[in-house]
């Protein structure tokens, strides 16, 4: 399998002095569904945000399709960003806009300002957006303001927005942490589907080992900004789990 993303010796030191990432080396293959495990504060979010430069890495390199993301800026950076969709724990939709408009914002990286202003009126854009909303089963909610949607529905709109980008890679930062177990599984199912059917690589941080085993093809665990485990989900036994989450931790099952 081809390598899609290659991270070499990545460091991030925040202004506050926190050393959040301490030399991450990671090679993500095309088509992988990579699960990031680790305690809160272990550096998962920082790592994900460094990949699309929402956070500026302190040092190291991130190679995506033969280009070093760390070194790009301006238009070139935006061209890379538009190929990388992102899903957030808090969904991060614009709450007083309709679901359809939110999905359309996924197209912003591809169009100029004038085009983007008229986007809700441009037929082919609207058709693509509707198609993507339909894929997550929310076409009937297209003109609803997203604040009126449930958590699970909002996260599915966010997935449709990411799909609008036509991404090669989706970064998901604890996408199910604010959802109930049943909804969490349905959201993960959509991500799994995209991974299998559209061959979109997914890097997803999670807290539930059961979901990691069900959807992940590979698990990487972080602890204090370093990778402490990298392997198949089946390899994580109780010993490894305690290594990652500490001796006190008990595995919680969610089905």
């Amino acid at each position: 399998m081809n390598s899609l993303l290659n991270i070499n010796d990545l460091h991030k030191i925040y202004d506050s002095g926190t050393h959040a990432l301490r030399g991450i080396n990671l090679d993500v293959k095309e088509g992988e569904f990579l699960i990031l495990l680790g305690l809160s504060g272990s550096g998962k979010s920082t790592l994900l945000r460094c990949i699309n430069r929402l956070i500026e890495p302190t040092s190291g390199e991130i190679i995506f399709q033969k280009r070093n993301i760390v070194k790009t800026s301006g238009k070139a950076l935006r061209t890379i960003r538009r190929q990388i969709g992102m899903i957030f724990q808090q969904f991060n939709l614009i709450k007083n806009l309709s679901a359809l408009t939110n999905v359309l914002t996924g197209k912003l990286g591809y169009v100029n300002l004038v085009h983007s202003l008229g986007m809700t009126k441009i037929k082919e854009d609207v058709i693509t957006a509707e198609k993507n909303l339909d894929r997550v089963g929310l076409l009937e909610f297209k003109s609803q303001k997203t604040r009126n949607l449930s958590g699970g529905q909002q996260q599915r709109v966010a997935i449709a927005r990411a799909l609008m980008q036509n991404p090669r890679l989706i970064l998901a930062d604890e996408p199910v942490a604010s959802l109930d177990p049943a909804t969490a599984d349905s959201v993960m199912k959509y991500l799994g589907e995209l991974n299998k059917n559209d061959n979109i690589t997914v890097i997803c941080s999670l807290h539930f080992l059961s979901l990691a085993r069900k959807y992940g093809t590979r698990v990487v665990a972080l602890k204090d900004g370093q990778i402490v485990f990298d392997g198949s989900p089946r390899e994580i036994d109780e010993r490894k789990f305690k290594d990652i989450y500490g001796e006190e931790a008990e595995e919680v099952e969610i089905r």
Partner: protein
Amino acid sequence: MKKDEINIKSALQGLVIDLLFWSYLWGCLYYLAHNWLGLILNYKYLIMLAMFSSGLFYLTGDSIGRKYFFPSHLTSRKWFKTLWGWLIIFSLLITFVVGWDIVEINPYKFFTKFKNAGGITSGIFDPSIIGYELQTESLEKLAEQNLPEEIIEELKKISGRKYTTRKVFSRELEKRLDPAAYDKYKQPILKSAIKNTEMLNKALTTLAETIFLALLATVLAIPLAFILSFFAARNLMPKTFLGNTIYVLIRTVATIFRSIEAIVWAIIFSVWVGIGPFAGMLALMIHSVAALTKLYSEQIENIDSGPVEAVRATGASTLQIWIFAVIPQIISPYLAFTIYRWDINVRMATIVGFVGGGGIGLLLLQQQQLLRWHNVGLIIWLIAAVVWSMDMISAKVRAKLSEM
């Protein structure tokens, strides 16, 4: 208890505080002694007195300055068992007494001089909606009705004079005619008088001027404040030297302009462009720009950063991020603030009129100086009605907006 660092700077600051405190105390005492007892003292001695007592107290445990900078000097004694506690109480008391004297507070006047307000009170209860006036044709009409010659002669004297209300007119008649004649001919005279709504028309015209003045001041302030607010929002400005400079500059200028009251701006502009509504509009506009820039930018600083992050992650440009992630979040609070500002501006427009800003404020000033209390009454009612309805409408609209 934390051990204090002994340093010269704190010690000096403590001494300065003591000196200021004692200067103030002696100053207040001298003010009272001078005003009530006629005592005259050279300021030299006052300063020496203050220096002497502050120096003395600085050395004791009752120094206020030392307590402020060296908290460990605070003893566990209750304040009312210490000299410095009583000193502070004494200084507060003397401040109140001196203040009472300076402001010339006089409750006696408040209760006994109420009759001075008779003119304005009767004006409020009898606003001049319809004015009365006798003209040649009314006198002719009265002559036809066979009114006695001497009454017509008497009425001729007041022909052409304008009376603001029916009551004022009848009072004038009562004064000029003997009681029997007044009772007998009051009705036909009143009927023959020419009635006008001149004052009402004028008040309504200037009121419209005021409302439009406030509206234009607000409307013209919106685009300026809107653009400025983006540059005055910490979370949108890049953390570079340039970004910081722009932010600080806009914030500072806005704060200065806002701290200058609209009434002061009106004085400046009434000299600049001449007395009239244009000056008033400029005054309100400049004040509104400053106020709205602050409110708007604070709103931007309070937005949810999540959507901004999400839209940035799609590869959107900065301008696209502003349009799609920032503006939708601020649009309804912006509208609410703007309507509220209009509401404030309508109220301010009246005041601004007083100092040359045109509109109903100017009319009010003129009528007040002419002692036409019934016209003043009418104007007050009209202003109250407009302010009240603006207040209600803006509250309703803002409540609706907050649901959005």
